[in-house]
């Protein structure tokens, strides 16, 4: 297993890198969406799976990232600048709101993040001068990736934009992987499992929670800023609380206490959606049933199911 893992990982990354060579435009579009949701859910899972806080306002930070990126791109067509400012905007918003949120845990935390998320939604929806109201912002260019005077890559072909999202996502995934396996990640898990003990060890729980919340906000902002150049528009529903539920569902689907859970969940989410939509437009019924089945029957998620049930079974053969 230990020898197999890096090999599999390399194969997967190779597959992702070679995807534009054989995949059509639609598949690439899907892949970008999967990457966006993965990054979004990974940041979210740092909060839920590692720190033990369920946030229902992540879509707010996602939307802040999207709108910030869109605003920048409408003025200065530079993809790098847009992405960076979207990410930072999400992070800063999370830092400020997180400061107010992290004193509370459990249901109060969830409700407070929900209310902040909905505040952002109501601003996106009603504050017409800045956000365009329910029309959203349209005509956002997919600006070239450039550092003036050094290089410039045209991002109009879907393949090129896919590479940009892929590379940035992989870096983000690598970083968060390092984070959760560092002393910082261990401390977060400690807080999740026994708050008091960690506090007695002299750790400031609040600061750690705030840091984790801010990182989740940065990731939501990053995921959000991938969206405007892809769709060329930003609309308020991305800030709505039902959008906050998406990372919750995929994290649960993939596995809550595993690192790869949110990624696997995102892939499955889009695959399930894509398959069912071919047969019926009412795909949410089936997805809702899957969610309920997961909660009632196996709470570990797909990744745990795979590593604990399928792998030993394969090994025995």
């Amino acid at each position: 297993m230990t020898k197999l893992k890096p090999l599999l990982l390399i194969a997967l990354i190779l597959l992702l890198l070679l995807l534009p060579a054989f995949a059509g435009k639609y598949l690439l579009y899907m892949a970008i969406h999967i990457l966006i949701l993965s990054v979004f859910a990974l940041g979210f899972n740092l909060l839920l799976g590692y720190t033990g806080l369920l946030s229902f306002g992540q879509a707010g930070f996602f939307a802040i990232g999207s709108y910030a990126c869109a605003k920048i791109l409408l003025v200065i067509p530079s993809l790098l600048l847009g992405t960076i400012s979207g990410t930072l905007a999400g992070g800063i918003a999370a830092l400020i709101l997180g400061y107010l949120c992290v004193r509370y845990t459990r249901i109060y935390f969830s409700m407070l993040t929900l209310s902040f998320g909905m505040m952002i939604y109501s601003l996106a929806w009603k504050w017409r001068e800045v956000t365009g109201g329910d029309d959203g912002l349209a005509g956002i260019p997919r600006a070239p990736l450039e550092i003036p005077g050094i290089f410039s890559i045209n991002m109009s072909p879907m393949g090129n934009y896919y590479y940009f999202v892929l590379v940035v996502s992989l870096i983000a995934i690598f970083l968060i992987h390092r984070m959760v396996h560092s002393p910082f990640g261990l401390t977060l898990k400690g807080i999740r499992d026994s708050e008091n003990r960690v506090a007695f060890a002299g750790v400031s729980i609040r600061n750690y929670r705030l840091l984790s919340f801010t990182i989740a906000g940065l990731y939501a902002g990053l995921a959000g800023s991938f969206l405007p150049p892809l769709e060329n528009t930003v609309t308020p529903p991305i800030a709505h609380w039902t959008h906050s539920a998406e990372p919750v569902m995929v994290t649960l689907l993939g596995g809550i206490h595993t690192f790869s859970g949110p990624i696997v969940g995102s892939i499955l989410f889009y695959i399930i959606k894509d398959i069912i939509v071919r047969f019926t437009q009412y795909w949410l019924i089936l997805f809702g049933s899957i969610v309920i089945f997961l909660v009632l029957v196996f709470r570990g998620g797909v990744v745990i199911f795979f590593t604990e049930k399928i792998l030993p079974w394969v090994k025995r053969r």
Partner: protein
Amino acid sequence: MYLWLLAAGLTLVFGVLGVLNFAHGSLFMLGAYAAFTFYGKLNINFGLSILLSLISVGIIGAILERFFIRRIYDLDLPYQLILTFGFILIFDDLVKMVWGGVAMIPPMPGFLEGNLTVLGRPYPFYNIFIIFAGLAVALVLWLILEKTWWGRMIRASASDREMAGAIGINIPFLFTTVFVLSAMLAALGGALGTPVRVVAPGIGTAMIIQAFVITVIGGLGNLKGAFVGALIVGILTSFGILLFPIFELFIIFVVMAIVLMVKPEGLFGK
């Protein structure tokens, strides 16, 4: 007042069962659709169609509790929220399948049409009817919880589930009845709302957030709080639309956040 009916059921289930039911708004929506069908489509008498929709949503509530909600009492909050969220998805799509995705405007019952002049201003008769219905429900709920044997059992098991079980209260059955009561309250809100509201899929997700705000402001699991919370939110919404239309929705959530930060257990929490 619909808000009060909605929030009463939500806070009751949270207070007694300890489950935050995301799908509560969907029960409201089902109540609205059921009343619409019975009254608007099948032309059954208004009072009877409300009764029929209460019963049908009550049955759905019983099934929900018995087969799904019952299994998650001991689980962590995220799982409860996610499970009930799964039901939102299912109910929303079911409604779209059965009634179609368009918004519908149900007819107004004849005897409740017209206006009443209060202090020189015309006031829709139906609104007054709703206000009294809401007050009546508040009174009945209070009587049930404070004065009846059933209410005493509910209060006992809300404060100590194991103890109540030990002295011979059939807890699982009691919880089912409480859940059914809550579902019926939601359905009543939805059914009474139909003549003046649009019936559309998605009202469930819109309503549940309002109900959350109310229950949080009033204190989770607190009926009196839910009543006051509903009044506060109702007044804020109507004045908000008049005074600062841009920030109407925003203000409600600001109030919710402030209550959470200053007094997380709500205005009427102990």
